[in-house]
């Protein structure tokens, strides 16, 4: 019995790895897309907007199945065309992380775009007047202030992302949800194992909420809080 709990606990590390790796991809893609949407280049605005719109309109699961099964088939066809007779399977970790990263990149881009727009234009102009380069303006003026505006949306996306990692169990990655289902099938006691997994997720989300609140307090130092009575 306790062996199953232990294996689910180990699976939680896989879930955490999926979540963190997807987050890294999502943040990178989100920043890039936000920059593209705010740029003056028409084509990049269209491409970025289309990406953000389409990705937010398709369920994670459908895209994950598409990447996993379609990717495997595409890769094998490619290998065949190159004359190789070996067949490969796409690693479910890569497929899952790629899908979640691409989807949450679209959500992140919305958050980041809003955050960049929330910074008064005068700030960038003032920095320009000081002779800063575009790179300097971004890293010294925009980015530090953006964090504050982006944090609430970022927190939301992260919490949704953590929960979305459960989907990788459906393409066969041995994350905690997959292991919980296996333990359920083996012992015919699905209730306790699923409840345990749910609790682990709750621990993850609670820890994140706590950490993000600390971060939020730090980045909104010195801003005026208005309280309606």
């Amino acid at each position, binding site marked *: 019995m306790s062996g199953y709990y232990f294996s689910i606990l180990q699976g939680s590390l896989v879930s955490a790895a999926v979540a963190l790796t997807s987050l890294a991809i999502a943040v990178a893609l989100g920043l890039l897309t936000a920059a593209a949407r705010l740029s003056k280049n028409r084509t990049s605005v269209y491409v970025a907007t289309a990406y953000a719109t*389409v990705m*937010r*309109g*398709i*369920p*994670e*699961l*459908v*895209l994950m*199945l*598409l990447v996993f*099964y*379609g990717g*495997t*088939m*595409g890769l094998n066809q490619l290998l065949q065309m190159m004359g190789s007779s070996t067949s490969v399977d796409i690693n479910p970790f890569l497929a899952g992380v790629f899908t979640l990263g691409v989807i949450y990149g679209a959500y992140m881009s919305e958050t980041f775009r809003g955050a960049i727009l929330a910074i008064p234009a005068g700030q960038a102009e003032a920095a320009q007047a000081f002779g800063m380069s575009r790179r300097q303006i971004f890293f010294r003026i925009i980015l530090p202030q953006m964090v504050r505006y982006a944090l609430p949306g970022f927190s939301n996306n992260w*919490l949704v992302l953590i*929960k*979305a*990692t*459960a*989907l990788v*169990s*459906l393409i066969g990655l041995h994350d905690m*949800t997959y292991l*919980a*289902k296996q333990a*359920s099938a083996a012992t*015919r*006691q*699905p*209730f*306790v194992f*699923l*409840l345990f*997994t*749910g609790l682990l*997720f*709750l621990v993850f*989300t*609670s820890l994140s909420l706590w950490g993000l609140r600390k971060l939020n307090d730090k980045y909104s130092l010195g801003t005026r809080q208005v309280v*309606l*009575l």
Partner: protein
Amino acid sequence: MKWDVIFQAENLALYGEGVVTTLGLLFSSLLVGGVLALFMAIALTERWKWLRLLVGAYTYVFRGTPLLIQVYLIYYGLGQLEWIQARWDEVWPWTYFKDPAFCAVLALSLNTAAYTAEMLAGAIRETNPGEIEAAQAFGMNHWQVMWSVTLPSAFRRTLPAYGNEVIMMLQTTSLASAVPSLIDLTSAASRVYAKFYLPFEAYLFAGLMYLLMTFALSGMFKLLERRYLAFLAPRSSNV
């Protein structure tokens, strides 16, 4: 790419069935979840401390765990409990727990209720104090204020966020495909994939259908917002 396979009558019919199931799941869980959310939002903003804590704990747990786990818990997990086992063959409400559609709708409803309740509670808390004072000055009692002033205005202000929630829910219904024997749009695609081994066509087509439904829903909410949030729009100069 073999798109003609997708457009064979029987496969289109399968997708059609999937769309109907998906929309059925969506609207029934929005209805049940919406009613639950209304009561929970009131509980979250009223002064009954224990009820507030209880509902707060409920929304915390349901918003902090994946829907997939909730679906599994209801569909597979409850069957482990002897108390349910003793009843689900005969005793009335419990017989539903053998029905996959019921379990899916239950999980989706409980999930969306938690999100919607918090959203609505936020809007209720942010009601302009002046509106409430004015209503009190008219001699309205607590529930009259709630029913004719606070709630109507809170509903309106929740509309944009609720639109997002509805679109998220549409995508979330795809998890119902994890419950066997329920053919929603995603499981329809999986069946077509398994039968013809055409992953790109099968899932891309389903993705396209989801996208169309998303656009339709977001268009609908734009219209609703234009109608019900007209008083918040910037005043145009040429009226």
